[in-house]
C-alpha cells in the first residue's frame, strides 16, 4: 500500500479544490443560487469501507459516472442524494414537479445527465488547465439506486489493482436551496504520478 506525503496530499487537495470550485460556479449559474465548496476530504480508504465513508450503502442517490481519457486516465463519479436530485430537476425544468422516491422519468434522467456533463466538464477542464494537460470525459453513465450498488462498479475497477482507494471527495452545497452533491475522482496510479510531476513534487 502506497503512503502519500503531506506535500502530495496538499497538492491533490489544491488540485481537486480548483476543479470543484469551477463546477460549483457552473451549477450556481444554472440554478441561480449560491453554491459553496467544502474543503476536500482526502483519505486512503480500504475499498471495502468506501460505501460507509461516503455516507452509507443504503442511502438513495443519483450517480453520474464518467471515464476520463487523455493525459490523465481514470474515472469521476458525481452523485447527489435522491432528494437533491429531485430538487435539481425541478429547478432545471420549472413547472414539472417530481415526487420523491419515484423513478425519474426519461426527461428528468436526461436533464440530470446533461447537468452532470456540464459540471464534470467544468471540473475536468479546470484540472486540465491547472496542470497543462489534455483531459477528456466520456458520455455520462446514469444510475439511480442505493449508494452501495451505484459505487460498487467503481470499486470493482479499483479492486482489480489495489485494496485501498485514494478517495478524493469534495462536497458542493447550496444552503439556500438545500442542495448537496459530491465529486469523487479516481485517477489511476500512473496518472497520479503524472499529476505529482506536473505540480512539481515528483
Amino acid at each position, binding site marked *: 500500500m502506497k503512503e502519500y506525503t503531506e506535500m502530495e496530499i496538499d497538492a491533490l487537495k489544491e488540485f481537486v479544490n480548483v476543479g470543484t470550485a469551477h463546477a460549483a460556479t457552473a451549477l450556481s449559474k444554472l440554478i441561480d443560487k449560491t453554491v459553496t465548496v467544502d474543503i476536500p476530504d482526502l483519505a486512503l480508504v480500504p475499498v471495502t469501507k468506501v460505501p460507509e465513508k461516503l455516507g452509507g450503502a443504503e442511502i438513495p442517490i443519483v450517480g453520474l459516472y464518467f471515464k476520463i481519457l487523455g493525459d490523465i486516465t481514470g474515472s469521476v463519479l458525481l452523485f447527489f442524494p435522491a432528494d437533491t436530485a429531485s430538487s435539481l430537476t425541478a429547478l432545471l425544468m420549472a413547472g414539472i414537479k417530481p415526487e420523491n422516491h419515484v423513478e425519474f422519468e426519461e426527461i428528468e434522467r436526461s436533464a440530470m445527465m446533461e447537468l452532470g456533463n456540464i459540471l464534470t466538464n467544468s471540473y475536468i477542464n479546470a484540472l486540465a488547465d491547472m496542470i497543462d494537460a489534455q483531459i477528456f470525459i466520456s458520455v455520462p453513465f446514469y444510475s439511480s439506486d442505493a449508494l452501495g450498488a451505484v459505487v460498487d*462498479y467503481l470499486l470493482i475497477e479499483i479492486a*482489480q489493482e489495489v485494496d485501498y482507494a485514494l478517495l478524493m471527495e469534495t462536497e458542493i452545497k447550496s444552503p439556500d436551496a438545500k442542495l448537496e452533491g459530491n465529486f469523487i475522482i479516481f485517477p489511476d496510479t500512473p496518472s497520479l504520478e503524472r499529476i505529482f510531476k506536473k505540480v512539481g513534487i515528483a
Partner: protein
Amino acid sequence: MDVISVGIGEYIVAKNACLLESISLGSCVGIALHDPVTKVSGLAHIMLPDSALSRSSQAPSPKFADVAVAKMLEEMTRLGAVRAKITAKIAGGACMFQSAVPDPSMNIGDRNIEAVKKLLENAKIFLVAEDTGKNYGRTIVFDTTSGKLTIKSAKIGTKEI
C-alpha cells in the same frame, strides 16, 4: 437471530443459526452456500470473477469469486459440512449504469455471473436458485437455518429464493 454483515469483498461462514446479510449489491455477486443437513452455511460478496486477473502481488483476496468459494468450502467442511451436500444460491450482478451510448465494458455484472456459474459447475455445486442481472441494486439476507435467500430492492420489492 443474529444478523452478521458481509462487507464488499468479504465472506463469512457460520455453523450456528444466524442471518448473513450483504447490503446494496450492484454489479457484485452474493454467493450463498448451504449444507441442508448440518446447516453449515456461508455468504460471500464478491467483486471480480477470477484471481488469475489480479494485477496485485498480494495474497489472493476473497474479493475474487474463485478465492471466496474455495475458502468457504474449506471452512464449511472444517465446521462439519458434507462437501457433496453443499448447494448454492446467487444474487446480484446487475448492470447499474445506463447511457445514450452503451459501453460493453460497463457490463462487469454479466461477467461476474457467468464466472460464478462456471465456477460452481466446475466445483460440482448445484445452483438451486438465482436472482441476477437486470439494472437494480439488491440487499440480500441469507437464513443459515432454512437456506432461504431474501432479496430486497427499492425498485422491485422483496422476494425469496
